[in-house]
């Protein structure tokens, strides 16, 4: 343990840039690929100045072809590089879905470990920033269901950098989801240099005995706000920031639910097939006898993420979360 690590106050997107910078500096093999990541520094500036610093050989503006550059990234990963690929918005990852789910995630198993794909795919995601349609999807579940790839999502600058470094160091492919809505809405302390946040471990943000609240990414501030109001009404919430969406930290969930007996899961994605169901299944498997009420899901609806004129109606709000909290309390 270092005794005096410098600390900077950064936004979430700056923490990502810092994480990329740290790893590009540390490992020559780290190479960035994506649309507009060079001179432009990415449409969200996540790769700001990195091309200037590391050159065109290591920060590559690719042609507009997600399948092509994810596929090429796989070839590079197998051949000694550590590609960190930016998908401009998660909603534009679908053309690369085949490359991800039939190759990135299966090459290790297919070859019994002979060929591996230590690749990171970064993608801004989620609604709430008045972006055009498809830009606002939060479809982590279509990746977490497919074995062979990990999925993480930070909710604050510290985790953003730590999880990114962990993802780059992970020997397997990691989908790294970036909640756009939090890119610049909050700041936090971020240590200089290298540190990691372990993939697979959730983070307890608040301790309480009455209800377990589980959320991640952009839903964290909303959930904390709801927890605060609940507290003012005498309901004490255990708030878990999942951080890793695959694998999920089942132990922290079980422990909390066995304490509270009541659970509210919050996510932006559609209810059907959403990660809320994975969490219900974990509770079913680990904590059946402790449950005092059915798990309540406060989620996006089973409709496509609507145009932004309607998005406030789609997204979970502190009010809807509070309603869920009260529902499990009243059961």
């Amino acid at each position, binding site marked *: 343990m270092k005794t005096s690590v410098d600390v900077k106050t950064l936004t979430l997107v700056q923490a990502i840039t810092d994480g990329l910078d740290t790893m590009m500096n540390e490992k020559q093999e780290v190479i960035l690929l994506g649309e507009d990541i060079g001179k432009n520094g990415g449409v969200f500036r996540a790769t700001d100045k990195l091309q200037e610093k590391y050159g065109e050989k290591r920060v590559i*503006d690719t*042609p*507009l072809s997600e399948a092509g550059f994810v596929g090429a990234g796989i070839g590079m990963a197998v051949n000694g590089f550590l590609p960190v690929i930016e998908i401009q918005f998660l909603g534009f990852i*679908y053309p690369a879905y085949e490359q991800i789910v039939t190759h990135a995630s299966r090459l290790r198993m297919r070859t019994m470990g002979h060929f591996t794909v230590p690749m990171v795919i970064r993608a801004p995601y989620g609604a709430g920033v008045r972006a055009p349609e498809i830009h606002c999807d939060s479809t982590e579940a279509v990746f977490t269901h497919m074995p062979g790839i990990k999925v993480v999502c930070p909710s604050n600058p510290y985790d953003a950098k730590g999880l990114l470094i962990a993802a780059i160091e992970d020997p397997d492919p990691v989908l790294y989801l970036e909640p756009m809505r939090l890119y610049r809405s909050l700041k936090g302390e971020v240590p200089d240099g290298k540190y990691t946040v372990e993939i697979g471990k959730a983070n307890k943000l608040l301790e309480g005995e009455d209800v377990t609240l589980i959320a991640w990414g952009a839903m964290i501030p909303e959930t904390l706000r709801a927890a605060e109001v609940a507290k003012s009404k005498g309901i004490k919430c255990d708030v878990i920031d999942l951080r890793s969406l695959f694998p999920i930290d089942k132990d922290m969930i079980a422990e909390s639910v066995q304490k509270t007996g009541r659970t509210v899961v919050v996510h932006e994605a559609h209810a059907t097939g959403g990660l809320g169901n994975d969490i219900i299944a974990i509770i079913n498997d680990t904590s059946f006898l402790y449950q005092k009420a059915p798990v309540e899901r406060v989620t996006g609806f089973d409709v496509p993420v609507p145009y*932004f*004129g309607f998005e406030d*109606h789609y997204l979970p709000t502190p009010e809807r979360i509070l309603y869920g909290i009260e529902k499990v309390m009243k059961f």
Partner: protein
Amino acid sequence: MESQFPMKQIVDTNGKIVLPEYKERITAELAKEFFKQMIRIRTFDRKALSLQRQGRIGTYAPFEGQEGAQVGSAMALNDGDWMFPTYRDHGAAIVFGHSLMRVLLFWNGRNEGCVPPVGKRIFPPGIPIATQIPHAAGAAFAEKQKGTSAASIAYFGDGATSEGDFHEGINFASVLRAPVIFFNQNNHYAISVPMSKQMNSKTIAQKSLAYDIPGIRIDGNDVFSSYFETLAALEKARNGEGPTLIEAVTWRYGAHTTSDDPGRYRDQGENVRRREEADPILRVERWLKNEGLYDESWVEEVKEGAVAEVEAAVLEMEAFPQANPADIFDHVFAKPTWQIEKQKKNYLDFIGGERS
């Protein structure tokens, strides 16, 4: 390859006819209509940009500079044809008959903006790049199957040519001889990525060779070329000769969208130069002047008409009813599933309770 695909001009930047064989076909009426439509959509574009700056609509993708390509190609269409625009082709959509008010609604995050006027076969702007290209091929093929003479046009940018859907859509159309025009607006950039990083080829027109279909490269700021070449390609399409790829070389003066800062990646002086030399509206103006057809008062009238039309659309858009939350549930399926019914009821009850 560039020599195999020279950039065709019918009228040059000085407003002079380069290809005399078109002389007869370029009537005053036609040229004035080009002018009028370009003024109309440029007026719209600038207004939209300012609405965005004032926070009255969301992110906006301006097309200023590309009016020649959009007006010429859209005017070549017949009423029964299909149009598949991108987020930057609402100029073409408006020329083809879309409602200005609806286009503004679209940019204000309202699905209502995707509904074209009755009888107008205009798809919603394609957001995921190149995905509209196979749609256009399919809709065109359907017309062929029905035995009509309708065709479709797909708009897309230089960046879009890198996507698999570009390739698969054109291949499909070429094999099945679907009556479709693949209309590329090569504005040299895909957001910040210049053509030289997008492709190794110097032209987009040459990509037609992969599918053995005609490929044509035109000066996209020459509305005359855009019009006559689209017309010629449409005629072929209607005659069962299959698709054509048209590369209209052009330039956007502005940012990629209002979220973009082009100063980061290109020499912005280029815009000034191009405005002066190669502006599509200026070119028609010069032609009109050369022909002695330029009438100040008519031009004033056109400009005022455009402003009035756009202002009316803005008023209409702003008076449009607020988003109705029921709408996010009601159009997913013809008949909502139980999930949607339950979620709708719960949500409407919830906000009803909140609001009352």
